[in-house]
């Protein structure tokens, strides 16, 4: 310091990690959620702009996407919140064995979801280059697949990390907590997209 200083408070007793909004990375995660949420919001806006040019949606003679794979995906995704909440709780209680166990469950669920997602692409009844309707349906599904895929890789890496000695570090529990928070965002984003891909083309056919 180039100036004279006078000492006030001693902060050495402050803790070195905390959960939720006290954590620095929590704010980073929120920042990226806002970015991705804005991206989804604008893609949804584009969906409605393109829809406004059609008299029927899905435009004839196209059938709306088949419901089975998408609905199955939605159910599995919503149910995944049960282990996800359990992980969040275990992380907050620094319960390492539970975190290790449940992370493997979440990795498994993510893998199942990606397989179902493959079936979803196969049941859209339109190709991305057929018309603008097909393009935006594929775009929404692809954007969300990127979301699920990147979070799945993230979860795999974190699961591996938690099984090493790094998992014993208190800050890694904060990471686990925030990974679970992000998963909530992933499935929350999916609900409007599910409605737009599978139900709106039925309602305005």
């Amino acid at each position, binding site marked *: 310091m180039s100036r004279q200083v006078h000492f006030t408070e001693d*902060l050495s007793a402050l803790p070195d990690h905390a959960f939720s909004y006290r954590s620095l990375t929590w704010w980073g995660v929120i920042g990226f959620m806002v970015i991705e949420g804005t991206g989804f919001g604008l893609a949804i806006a584009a969906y409605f702009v393109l829809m406004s*040019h059609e008299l029927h949606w899905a435009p004839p003679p196209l059938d709306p996407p088949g419901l089975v794979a998408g609905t199955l995906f939605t159910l599995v995704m919503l149910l995944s919140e049960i282990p996800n909440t359990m992980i969040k709780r275990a992380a907050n209680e620094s319960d390492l064995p539970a975190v290790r166990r449940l992370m493997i469950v979440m990795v498994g669920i993510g893998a199942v979801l990606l397989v179902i997602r493959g079936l979803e692409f196969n049941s859209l009844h339109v190709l991305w280059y057929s018309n603008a309707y097909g393009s935006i349906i594929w775009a929404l599904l692809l954007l969300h697949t990127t979301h699920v895929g990147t979070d799945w890789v993230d979860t795999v890496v974190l699961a591996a990390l938690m099984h090493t000695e790094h998992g014993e570090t208190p800050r890694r529990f904060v990471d686990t907590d925030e990974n679970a928070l992000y998963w909530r965002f992933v499935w929350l984003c999916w609900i409007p997209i599910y409605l737009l891909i599978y139900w709106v083309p039925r309602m305005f056919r």
Partner: protein
Amino acid sequence: MSRPPKRPAAEKPQIVRDGPDLTGPELADRLDATWARPRGLIGWLATVDHKEIGIRYIVTALAFLALGGLMALHMRLQLMFPDSQWLGAGAFNETFTMHGTTMMFLFAVPVMQGVQIYLAPIMVGTRAMAFPRLTAFSYYMYLFGGLFLWTAHFLHFGPDNGWFSYVPLAGPQYGIGKRADVWAQTVTFTEIAGLAVAVTLVVTILKQRAPGMTLARMPIFVWATLVTSLMVIFSMPSVALVSGMLLSDRLVGTQFFNPVEHGDPLLWQHLFWFFGHPEVYIIFLPATGFVSEIVSTFSRRAIFGYPVVVLSLVSTGILAFGLWVHHMFATGLPRVGYSFYTAASMAVSIPTGLQIFCWIATIWEGRPRLQVPMLYVIGFIITFVIGGLSGVIIAAVPLDLQLHDTYFIVAHFHYVLIGGAVFPLLGAITYWYPKFTGRMMSERLGRIGFWTIFLGFQLAFFPMHFAGLMGMPRRVYTYPAGMGLELPNMLSSIGSAVVAVAVLMFVVNMLASLRAGVAAGPDPWDAPSLEWAVASPPPHYNFAHIPAVESRTPLWDAKDGLPVVHGLRVDERELILTSVISAAPDLREPSAVPSIWPFISAVAVAVTFICSVFSPWALAFGAVPAAAALIAWFWPKTPGANPEPQIT
């Protein structure tokens, strides 16, 4: 647990912290050892020091400014005489596209973010950015994006569809070759960089402010940085999305913008301008932050109407998202759309007007010193008011329809962008140059440079109003003789040469002052904010002891010693996190050490992006090395269950 955790305490039996018992040169030596980066090329590439990254951003952006400026000179040479065939239509298209793309994406936003990266952490009194490796990664993404664009230009496949790359001209039907793909992918690079920086800045400002620096005590420049970064977060996803849609239309045959298959070319314009209009304020608001800081220091009083200035920044940031359609008046809109966007476009001038009145009041109430940074502020106020007023009048639809795509618009937005952002930037560089380098820039050369650029600018751009009113359209490579356009074009071309000379003088001043400038000392301007409490240039760790802030002008109010807190680790990189609103101390937070992985990750992502211009499969294959590099980046390098050594 299978095995007991390692105990680093065995190797480091004592925690070392700053405080009354550890201060002065010994503390500085120890902090230096902890915060310095490794030497050599790897260390240079691995740096996470926000000051080093900020300077790299600024220098790189200035290099792109020079390239974009050369493009401008090409255009002015071509337009100097009527019926000129020197450049030709195709080359002219490429030239104005490269000029606009470079200035908006590679100069204006990155240079502002560079200054913010350098200054914001020091102004809020912390030792490092939040997520410093992400900041490093962002720089490399930005650099690679810029190099990609310019390499393509030199290899004759640079973009030529304008900086906004409208479809269908840029779409697969008309935009043949790879030019439009290069544009779209350059945008992706810069958006990733811009978004990453925005998040790191927001988190740094919200969570790392020095204890006591409540939101109501933040320097105005930090407020401007916060608002701008939030605007980046909400606007840049739009252009990232729409440039992705353009690429997919071009590469894999989607039909987003193809009307034959019920796509919509205007969808491009909506999504582009939803980003593009806030972009103008993303460039302008940091400049108003510079102006507030400079006006306050050189008037020797706190800014007049602090809450008004802050609320003006926030309301400009919000209103900026309600204006984008005024770029599309000529496309045909519902009547209510015209009315709403006209009203919104006029309304946005109100908060900016309030800021200008606050600056004038600060100067009026203070004891102003007319040194070079202050000259730039005055040049800014005059020029920006002219540009602002021409903006308000073209918010009226009938006039806009008349002047749309004429040189009147070119004059207007150069008045607001050069007058509103570049003048304050040159003032800011002069103002903070001693902090960056430890030396003052030459006052004499600075004054000559100011008057040269101020008068040269007016000569270059004021006649464009008349050329536009006479009907000269933008983006045409020549004009016929005998229409009265010769004089305004000749004056503009001469003016642009004068501006180029002035910019050159500024660069010479910067370079010469690096060696020959007067030594600055920590606080050469007697300024009030925290960056002037540390040495010039600041040490790696910024602050040996973290300041405790008790007012908006901490240095002016700390005559008998700056209050500081203590107790941070000295043997490890450590910061203080504080609460978001009241900045109460909350946590001690470790800060990342240098790492080469952000650089490697950026290389992997850049190769992927560049290859994807030629084949969409590159995204699938490139994802693997990119993911591997990112995993290596995030994987903790320090083993041990409890990195905090315990007192034993």
